[in-house]
């Protein structure tokens, strides 16, 4: 009984030391909660034997757009031609650079964005996606 108690004390003491790497020439068995996540495998399927070669639908991975005034205007206008990942993928840019981008979409690419919506979009991008303001 006496031996048994010493055994437990020794294991506990050595555990504390080992957990701090004092006695080990290596660390092992150290796991943690998954961080960036996992990616599911997708089924690979060539489809039918007729003359149609169909790759299927392309997935949209909707980004986490910053909340704020003008977000609706982005969603209602910009997304006609491209997903908002075209915003979140860009480098952080000055308000002026974002304004130039929005104006390029309208003038060069013919995006049918009303003036008031365009101003709100410029304001939104300049409020959330500049070097000073971007959080995520």
């Amino acid at each position, binding site marked *: 009984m006496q*031996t048994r108690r010493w*055994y437990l004390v*020794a*294991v*506990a003491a*050595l*555990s*504390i030391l*080992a*957990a*701090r*790497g004092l006695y*080990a020439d*290596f*660390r*092992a*068995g*150290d*796991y*943690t*909660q*998954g*961080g*960036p996540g996992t*990616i*599911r*495998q997708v089924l*690979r399927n060539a489809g039918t034997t007729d*003359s*149609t*070669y*169909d*790759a*299927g*639908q*392309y*997935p*949209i*991975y909707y980004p986490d757009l910053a909340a704020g005034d003008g977000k609706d205007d982005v969603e209602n206008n910009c997304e*006609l*031609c*491209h*997903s908002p*990942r*075209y915003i*979140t*993928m*860009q*480098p*952080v*840019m000055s308000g002026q*650079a974002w304004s130039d*981008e929005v104006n390029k979409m309208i003038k*060069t*690419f*013919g*995006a049918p964005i009303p003036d008031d919506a365009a101003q709100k979009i410029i304001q939104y991008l300049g409020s959330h996606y500049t*070097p000073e303001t*971007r959080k*995520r």
Partner: protein
Amino acid sequence: MEDFQQGLTRRRWLKTVGAASAALAAGQILGEPKAAGQEISGQQPAPEFTGPGANPYWTSVGQLATYPQKAPLILLTDRPVQLETPRHYFLSTVTPNDAFYVRWHLPMIPNAVDLKEWRLHVEGNVERPLTLSFPELTTRFKTVSIAAVNQCSGNSRSRLQPRVPGGQWGNGAMGNAAWTGIKLREILDAAGVKSGSVQVQFEGLDRGLGPKGLGSNRFMKSLDLTNPVIDLCVVAFAMNDEPLPMLNGFPARLVVPGYFATYWMKSLSSIRVLDTPDDNFWMKAAYRIPDTPRGNTTPEDMKSGKVATVPIASMPVRSFLISPDGSTKIPAGFPLRLRGIAFSGYGGVKKVEVSSDNGANWTEAQLGTDAGMYSFRIWYLNWTPKAAGRYQVAVRATDTKGNVQPDDGVWNAGGYLWNKIERQEIVVGDAS
């Protein structure tokens, strides 16, 4: 106690202790244990955006995502689709089809093609317009094969200072494949180019939702008929001996060896001979570089409007260290083999040199098999770091025309032509 020590080997003892300490930690007897070296844990997510400085990572930041016929690739955008190839795929000269990067311009990109209906139109200023079915394309002409690098004009755009808008690629908007198909010249000859023709224009199945006549409606690219690259061009229906993935341009795409990928029209549907120069947006306004040495300029000069531009063309020489990639600490005295790839759009790599001291001294690397002048070329160099430290390993290539990679970046508004010498920090630790 004595029985305990004798009964367990050291390894099993540590395992037991590890499990016991985990149990203790879970029971919060010890509180939250802070494991040594947690800052290098594989569970730390990479950032999803970088600040105004140059992107310091080899590829773009952002998540991996799955797409049809594709391995998980780095997601830049989802509509239209832009995906970047992770670094390790470049340990081979052949980039697998399912790992090959993806870049589309317009949202209406093909999901499916019915080959019963699909035709390649050869039209415009020709004697005999052709409408080629897929079997006609693959059997009527002589088939050729060429290994060639396809690199996005904006590859490495995220390195530029100041940053410019556009796809924020790291180095992975490139790939090398064996392209099999028909020489463009043979198809043009079959149609008979009329005299007075100046350019040949290419268009694919992708369409935009913008107004007619604008770049947001159609994507078209043209090459001068007098350009010698015309004779190198291939209308490829096979990529690495397989059909092209839909996202890489099924059923056929143009291959323009040595040229940036903007000309490599995907899902090719029209080859159009023009008797006047193409003035569509994608030629007149986009994919243009300053008509200066290396296409280099400044934001101030661009704004002043005095910088003349020309359409982008050949790819400058580049080289990359692929392995080791900096994620593994190397013991001092370890015999490493540095490995990577090099290429030049100007026709082949002559020499690759490696520096382990940030560019002060250079050693010539060995080159792998020559798969053709427009292919990736493997290079490798054995290197044994003697002492612990942080080594800045740099690699630079010289092409057969004598062009050497510079140690300066480039800046232009499009974010094109980046080919600065690459560096990778290799961390070497004490071995005893």
